[in-house]
């Protein structure tokens, strides 16, 4: 059927083959016939052929090569999705001969324009690595390149590749650390897990232990745990952290703080793996006072599937040993349900035991009492052991527990009794003197109990404390001697011990018995027992040539033994990274990366500073600043032609966070960025100094450029775009004017469009063919995202999805809900405000979302900083339902970024609103003569050879 011409027949055949593959039947005979169809037009047939190919290519390497050319062709396809899937299948074919082809394809795809293809390239890296580890060095180069990628789509996959190929190359992360932190919340959930785990390790090597002074702060820390609640907001915490920081010399690295802050919202993820990853990050990295936040999220996971519960409880058990206070408020969540599977019950028991303290022990013991009555015997046994552990840990309840356990000795279930005996034995060892009654009671039990471990325990107890029960002990030995041959090995050994001890203390009564037992043991099948018997005989029975040791026999046997410490099996498990497979199994799994210890002194934090020079190639360095300016200016021309294609916009909007980061340097140069940097990401405040450096550097670049002037044909066009800037408001001091002029002219230079296109191309996903993507389209859309990036790196989803149009950044003045249906937005339209040249024009856009009309919209009672002025817009008489209207008002911000507050009134309501100017919106119109402009323009034109053809716009020039 595969040879048929009809697609439907082929499809049917392929379906049957795949069904065979799925059932695990061997279908490799059909390989040649299937491979022929790899170039089939029908998508479903194609896909199924891929499935088959990937499964059997390894077995039939030669034939598989026939298909390679098809994929190579696919790699050149204009459609990004076809390129991606071709790479995916190509890299999945495990045939060593094609390694060079794969390498080439990966390298090419890593610099593909589409982030989706780059993501696929990242996926392909570990595949190639597992096929041929010798390619490692080349692959690391690719990884390094992809790590610098700024799209959320790629981030998760490349970190995955990093973890599989070169987890030890931690230095590759430095430059990307802040970017990863900022992108984290937008990365898809699986990528989040991988990134968080990697960052945990990274942070361990780069930052100082925040709990370094833990012992000093013990008390303070404890209190915090109880207070830790979800409602506790960030400010409070910061205040606390600040207070703590004052008391101790330790100061948290701002990057460390950034990581903690950016991961916290992920505790609310629906994905258990993400929550766990964040939890372990906090456990390993956060100051003690802040770890509390994870408790609630982990407790939430306990309501999930039982497998999830199992893993989470394992981790909680480890955490409770170190940080008991964290889970104490959630004690009841660990109460056991009768419907829980046994393994969950036992883990919960473990957690409860770890949580037991003087204050809550009575509740826990009461709870344990009910558990003992359960029908699940394994669970009951575990409960008894748990009681024993509580008793050893908390002295006050030891007697209560012991009494309870003794009562259990009369239980009808043998398992319960046996387990109790074992636990009692351990407890008694701590204070034997007071409990000879119990020992007597247990001696009686030996007739009934059959469980070997319990019998052995009783015998050991009697032997050890035979002086407390001098009458009973020989009697027990007599009984045991009778049944010696039928006992289990472990019991036999204890009988021997008992005999030896009695012989030493009470040789008159037991001499013969001991001899008898030793004789029996001499011919036992188990060599261990024979060995023991020989050893004991030599030691205790006096003979002519008895060695020097026999003198010390009594000391040897009746030495005071230290009481056993009952401790949790989860103790010390936290040296494994929590949440890892190794932690769960308590052994190192293959490929596990040790969690490094904290360094004693922090490595240089400046390695994480992203310098424009280093992190982006030369061409983008020159344009990153101008690009931004330029786009702002050109926007009015292109705004109406903005994005028809969803993917284009969305693909690059993942970018904004990073664009902002890159652009940061340039903002610094403009000297307006102090507050702005804060908005972007707090950690960058430390970059002020580096910004200064860049400034110098930049100047240098400029000078070099101005040295080599070259004219370009696009002057007039660039001039026209330049003119737009003339209408901007001046809000900067005059001293800056000259510099700004330069900036502006650079910015307006259309030839930068080319390089800009280059830069942007990394983030633009062309819909049909990359070559003909209209530049104006992505200019405008990426502008929007860039601008959003400037102020909104934190609010992850909002900018990409709400942005009403990609043209002008709209700011919200009054929300639809708070405004009772009246929505008000404003934007800085960058026009000159004609009535007063010192004012910034603010365009206000009213939308009436209600079903009735709104009247008399006007401004009242402006509350302004000194020197600030407002020019109100004319009152709007009526705004019908569903309509919207725009007006322009002028505000003189006095070159400050203070907000202008005023009331917005309708005929029914008044709303307090405020407009705060973002730094970049306070602009100055600059007048340039044509010559001046040309000169400025020439400065940078030599960098680019080919201007985009469509930047011809026709707006008037201000001269």
């Amino acid at each position: 059927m595969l040879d048929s011409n009809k697609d439907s027949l082929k499809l049917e055949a392929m379906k049957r083959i795949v069904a065979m593959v799925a059932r695990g039947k061997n279908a490799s005979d059909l390989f040649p016939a299937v491979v022929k169809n790899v170039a089939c037009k029908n998508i479903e047939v194609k896909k199924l052929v891929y499935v088959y190919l990937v499964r059997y290519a390894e077995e039939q390497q030669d034939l598989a090569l026939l298909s390679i050319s098809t994929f190579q062709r696919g790699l050149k396809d204009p459609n990004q999705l076809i390129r991606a899937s071709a790479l995916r299948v190509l890299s999945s074919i495990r045939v060593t001969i094609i390694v060079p082809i794969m390498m080439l394809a990966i390298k090419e795809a890593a610099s593909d324009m589409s982030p989706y293809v780059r993501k696929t390239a990242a996926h392909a890296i570990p595949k190639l690595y597992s096929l041929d580890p010798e390619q490692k060095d080349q692959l690391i180069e690719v990884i390094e390149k992809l790590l610098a990628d700024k799209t959320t789509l790629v981030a998760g996959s490349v970190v995955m590749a990093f973890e599989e190929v070169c987890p030890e190359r931690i230095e590759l992360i430095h430059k990307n650390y802040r970017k990863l932190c900022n992108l984290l919340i937008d990365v898809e959930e699986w990528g989040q897990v991988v990134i968080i785990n990697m960052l945990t390790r990274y942070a361990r090597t780069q930052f100082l232990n925040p709990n370094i002074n833990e012992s000093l702060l013990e008390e303070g820390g404890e209190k915090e745990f109880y207070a830790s609640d979800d409602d506790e907001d960030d400010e409070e915490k910061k205040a606390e952290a600040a207070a703590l920081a004052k008391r101790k010399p330790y100061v948290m690295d701002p990057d460390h703080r950034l990581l903690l802050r950016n991961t916290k919202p992920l505790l609310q993820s629906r994905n258990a793996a993400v929550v766990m990853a964040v939890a372990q990050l906090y456990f390993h990295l956060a100051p003690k006072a802040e770890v509390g936040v994870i408790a609630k999220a982990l407790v939430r996971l306990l309501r999930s599937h039982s497998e999830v519960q199992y893993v989470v409880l394992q981790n909680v058990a480890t955490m409770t040993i170190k940080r008991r206070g964290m889970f104490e408020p959630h004690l009841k969540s660990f109460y056991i349900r009768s419907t829980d599977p046994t393994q969950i019950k036992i883990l919960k028991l473990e957690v409860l035991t770890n949580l037991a303290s003087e204050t809550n022990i009575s509740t826990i013991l009461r709870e344990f009492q009910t558990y003992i009555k359960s029908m699940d015997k394994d669970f009951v046994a575990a409960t008894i052991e748990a009681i024993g552990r509580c008793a050893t840990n908390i002295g006050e309840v030891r007697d209560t527990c012991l009494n309870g356990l003794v009562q259990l000795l009369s239980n009808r279930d043998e398992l319960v009794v046996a387990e109790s005996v074992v636990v009692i034995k351990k407890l008694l060892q701590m204070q034997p003197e007071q409990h000879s009654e119990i020992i007597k009671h247990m001696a009686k039990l030996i007739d009934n109990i059959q469980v070997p471990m319990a019998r052995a325990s009783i015998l050991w107890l009697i032997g050890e404390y035979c002086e407390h029960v001098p009458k009973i002990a020989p009697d027990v030995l007599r009984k045991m001697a009778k049944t010696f041959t039928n006992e289990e090995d472990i019991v036999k050994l204890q009988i021997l011990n008992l005999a030896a001890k009695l012989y030493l203390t009470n040789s008159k009564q037991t001499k013969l018995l001991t001899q008898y037992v030793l004789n029996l043991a001499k011919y036992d099948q188990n060599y261990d027992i024979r060995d023991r018997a020989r050893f004991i005989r030599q030691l205790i029975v006096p003979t002519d040539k008895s060695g020097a040791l026999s003198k010390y026999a009594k000391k040897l046997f009746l030495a005071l033994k230290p009481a056993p410490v009952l401790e949790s099996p989860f103790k010390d498990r936290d040296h494994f990274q929590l949440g890892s497979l190794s932690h769960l199994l308590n052994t190192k799994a293959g490929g596990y990366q040790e969690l490094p210890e904290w360094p004693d002194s922090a490595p240089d934090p400046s390695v994480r500073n992203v310098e424009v020079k280093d992190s982006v190639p030369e061409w983008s360095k020159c344009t990153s600043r101008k690009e931004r300016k330029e786009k702002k200016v050109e926007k009015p021309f292109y705004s109406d032609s903005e994005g028809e294609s969803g993917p284009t916009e969305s693909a690059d909007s993942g970018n904004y966070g990073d664009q902002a980061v890159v652009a940061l340097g340039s903002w610094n140069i403009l000297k307006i960025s102090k507050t702005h940097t804060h908005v972007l990401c707090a950690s960058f405040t430390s970059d002020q100094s580096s910004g200064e450096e860049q400034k110098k550097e930049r100047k240098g670049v400029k000078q070099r450029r101005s040295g080599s002037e070259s004219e370009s044909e696009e002057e007039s066009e660039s001039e026209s775009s330049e003119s737009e800037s003339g209408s901007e408001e001046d809000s900067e001091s005059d001293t800056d004017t000259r510099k700004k002029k330069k900036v502006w002219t650079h910015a307006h230079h259309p030839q930068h469009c080319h390089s800009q296109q280059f830069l942007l191309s990394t983030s633009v996903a062309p819909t049909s063919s990359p070559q003909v993507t209209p530049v104006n389209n992505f200019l405008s859309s990426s502008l929007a995202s860039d601008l959003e990036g400037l102020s909104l790196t934190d609010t992850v989803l909002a900018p990409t999805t709400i942005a009403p149009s990609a043209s002008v950044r709209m700011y919200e003045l009054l929300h639809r809900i708070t405004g009772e249906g009246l929505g008000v937005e404003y934007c800085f339209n960058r026009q000159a405000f004609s009535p007063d040249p010192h004012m910034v024009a603010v365009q206000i856009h009213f939308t009436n979302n209600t079903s009735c009309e709104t009247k008399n919209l006007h401004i009242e009672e402006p509350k302004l900083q000194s020197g600030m002025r407002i020019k109100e817009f004319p009152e709007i008489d009526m705004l019908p339902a569903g309509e919207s209207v725009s007006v322009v008002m002028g505000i003189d911000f006095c070159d400050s970024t203070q907000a202008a507050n005023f009331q917005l009134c309708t005929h029914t309501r008044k709303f307090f609103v405020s407009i705060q100017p973002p730094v970049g919106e306070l602009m100055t119109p600059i007048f340039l003569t044509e010559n001046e402009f040309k000169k400025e323009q020439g400065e940078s034109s030599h960098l680019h050879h080919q201007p985009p053809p469509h930047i011809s716009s026709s707006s008037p020039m201000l001269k």
Partner: protein
Amino acid sequence: MIHSLFLINNAGDIFLEKHWKSVISRSVCDYFFEAQEKAMEPDNVPPVIRTPHHYLINIYRDKIFFVSVIQTEVPPLFVIEFLHRVAEMFQDYFGDCSEVAIKDNVVIVYELLEEMLDNGFPLATESNILKELIKPPTILRSMVNSITGSSNVGETLPTGQLSTVPWRRAGVKYTNNEAYFDVVEEIDAILDKSGTTVFAEIQGVIDACVKLSGMPDLTLSFMNPRLLDDVSFHPCVRFKRWESERVLSFIPPDGNFRLMSYHVNAQNLVAIPVYVRQNISFFESGSSGRLDITLGPKQTMGKTVECVVVTVHMPKVVLNANLTATQGNYTYDPVTKILVWDIGKLNQQKLPNLKGSLSLQSGAPKPEENPSLNIDLKIQQLAISGLKVNRLDMYGEKYKPFKGVKYVTKVFR
């Protein structure tokens, strides 16, 4: 990461295998069978099993074991969560996740698995994207396909995968625009013998069925958001808005999805909607026992309690039960020792009662512990915590959607 996946039914047959890297022989499952045998019950199979060369991470769902093979370190929850996603996806596609359904649609299953993982790393797990790639089977489509020879694989390329709203597919169109929200709350309570609450908590979920055209931007606000103590969201919900304004603002995926799940602060005491009077006793002699259970409504806020089912796990010695129920009917399974009493609607006037004798294995000692009772019930149109949706607003699209909210309270274990 995930190397291979085996699907195994209760009888121990491996009925599907899929490998993402080189093929691993199915004999690796022998270690799993060993563990399964040791565990007696499917619930008790350890989720992570170590074998000399591999690690097996498995989940048990809908009577199928999903056994994945791992070779290197990977967070176990990562795999477990993913396997559950796979199971949910099957459910979404085929209505149920049974062995029969999977066998019937083996090709689609294979295509799905191929798309969900690449080299063992999750690729596309959003149902909206997958449905764009591979259309779910319907009777009509399978008929059309068999006649015309067209396929289940989407002709269009999954552009959604590339967007920043990866959970929503582009170009959605409906003639009736509807958005339904189900607020489902579950009470989880442990009562002691006398009926006092040992432990009680309310967990709730909001499941949504949104069929809206275009790219709607929804805002859901509550009357009393303070009730919500601990929440987790679908990735579409904007966390910052929730933090600052306590409203859910999101662009919904298309179709059914779980918008959020929450936990209600247990400090305000949970009102248990029913009370139980029970008396189960076993006699020392005569190997018999007596059982008497009565149920009555309590604090139901005027709503009827429905679907009441009482389940009792009897001790092993109980051979049979001879009971009479005033309402509903009961069954006793002497093998599993489970007594199920299906009451149905709870009648205010005449309280349902189950009474009668139990026969025990003769000679065996009487059970020391009285069995515990599990009660399942359901109350329509009531969220027991008192949570109320205030309003739903839609932005970004012009049409007026039809909106609906339903409340259900369940007690179900």
